[in-house]
């Protein structure tokens, strides 16, 4: 078992004057095995993105513990957490925005490599980058471009290649395809499946689109207002939904 979240909660404070607190994530527990894709589905505002960021400690959890490879993350000192960062990465919803607009694609790709010294020397670095680009289906001519000169699909591939450079064990995919067209979405989903198969990377696939999650996940968690209301295999969820909210979500699918 790669990762386990236990009774994870997060409260946000709204407005300086009225000290009202919103409990965006409320006692969420689940576990993800090595090489497994866990789908996390819910309407916007259900707290699914917050869960993703809590797992990577991009947000401080108010309560709860996160075990990664047996180590409890919230207890780790800064240094220890630092080298664990390599194994846990994230890809975002807006491809163009997840790359530094002032850096050429080559620079963005080289960042992770240089940060952890994964390739010594310029030529080794370029070689490594080209290998990564090839895995995600891009070519050398994309290296000299800026993020705004790429299409949505291409930018998302660069983001995935960047993450791949660190050879992570676990990746949070926060609605990676919701801004993309259907055909481009299919290419990215195909790529994620390939990374799961060939590199044994496990994913937390966050989305509001039940059909996409059903197609790609090994297990699905349904989230409503900060709580996981149902968890199970896709077929089981779709054939015998137990929780009323799950039924409600399934009925609102507009299939052909």
């Amino acid at each position: 078992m790669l990762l386990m979240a236990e009774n994870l909660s997060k409260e946000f404070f709204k407005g300086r004057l009225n000290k009202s607190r919103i409990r965006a994530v409320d006692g969420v527990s689940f576990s993800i095995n090595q090489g497994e894709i866990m789908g996390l589905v819910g309407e916007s505002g259900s707290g699914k993105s917050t869960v993703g960021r809590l797992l990577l400690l991009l947000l401080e959890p108010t309560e709860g513990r996160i075990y990664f490879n047996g180590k409890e993350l919230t207890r780790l000192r800064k240094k220890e957490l630092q080298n664990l960062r390599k194994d846990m990465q994230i890809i975002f919803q807006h491809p163009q925005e997840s790359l530094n607009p002032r850096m050429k694609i080559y620079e963005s790709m080289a960042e992770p490599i240089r940060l952890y010294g994964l390739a010594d020397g310029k030529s080794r670095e370029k070689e490594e980058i080209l290998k990564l680009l090839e895995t995600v289906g891009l070519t050398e001519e994309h290296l000299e471009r800026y993020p705004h000169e790429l299409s949505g699909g291409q930018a998302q591939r660069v983001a995935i290649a960047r993450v791949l450079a660190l050879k992570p064990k676990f990746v949070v995919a926060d609605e990676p395809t919701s801004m993309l067209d259907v055909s481009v979405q299919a290419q990215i989903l195909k790529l994620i499946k390939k990374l799961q198969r060939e590199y044994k990377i496990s994913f937390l696939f966050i989305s509001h689109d039940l059909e996409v999650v059903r197609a790609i996940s090994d297990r699905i968690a349904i989230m409503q207002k900060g709580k996981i209301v149902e968890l199970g295999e896709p077929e089981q969820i779709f054939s015998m939904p137990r929780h009323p909210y799950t039924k409600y979500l399934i009925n609102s699918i507009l299939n052909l």
Partner: protein
Amino acid sequence: MVLVQTAMENSEQKAKTAETLLEIRNLKTYFKINGSIVKAVDNVSLKIINGEILGLIGETGCGKSVLGLSILRLLPENAKIEGNLLFRGKEILSLSKAEMRKLRGKEIVLIPQNPSTSLNPLMQIGCQVLEAVIRHHNLKKSEAVSKVLDLFSKLKLQEPPRKFRDFPHQLSGGMKQRVLMAMGVACNPKLIIVDEPTKGLDAVLRIEVVRMLKETASAAGTSMLLITHDFSVAAALAHRIAVMYAGEIVEMGKTAAVLRNPRHPYTAGLLNSLPGKGFNPIPGSSPSIISLPEGCRFHPRCSRANMKCTASHPELVKLNDDHFVRCFNVCF
């Protein structure tokens, strides 16, 4: 699914009283950008029959929204439009500015794309709808206001009198969509152009918008040009579907026919890349409109492409009574 059947039954009765509402012949919309000509819409022809909903499907950058705005002549100054736009026999492109303004909002209406930025933030919701009503009907103010309130209640906006005085920032996304809908149907137009009504919406909101569009169209009996990238929305609402790629229509036909047996490889590819159909993607990416490939614009990504496809440019060919395809090597 219930919704799909009703759409198809409607198209049978509508076909009988077939009187063409809008006919587009070889429409070309070009833009001059930094000295180069960009063909956003390139030689498009299609017909919309009275009371019919035509789904215009295509991915980002295929020119579908530009087509919608061309019909209403709402494009920036550096746009050039050629061809014919016959609306109930009148040629839209030769109308004067004043005549065009009488047409907009009265005969042909646009329901814009993102509701959150399509309402004037400094003006009360009611006034923005009232504006359209007063512009086209010389009603007394009180009559116009009551018409707006009645529209609001028809579109299930709670306590219309209060909503009338609310400002856009006080409404949710769904409510703003309803207000734009009300603005659209305020003067019971002949043709409603709906631009990407479900873009970026949750599944739940999406189905709500689809229901609203269904009620509005069937209630008023108006025809609709539904511009979307979402196949299932088009399937649920449209009687006929036209698929656009790189500024051209590549396939057009009855909804059931196009969905059941798509004849153009791109349409087939799109349908197969849906999550429900196992997300097998179309290789490559859609070409930028500035540098279009030779011959058939889809040939670089088409598994069925042959010599002919790369050499010459296919025309839109009529397969049977109501099915058109732009391809030399049609699928079966």
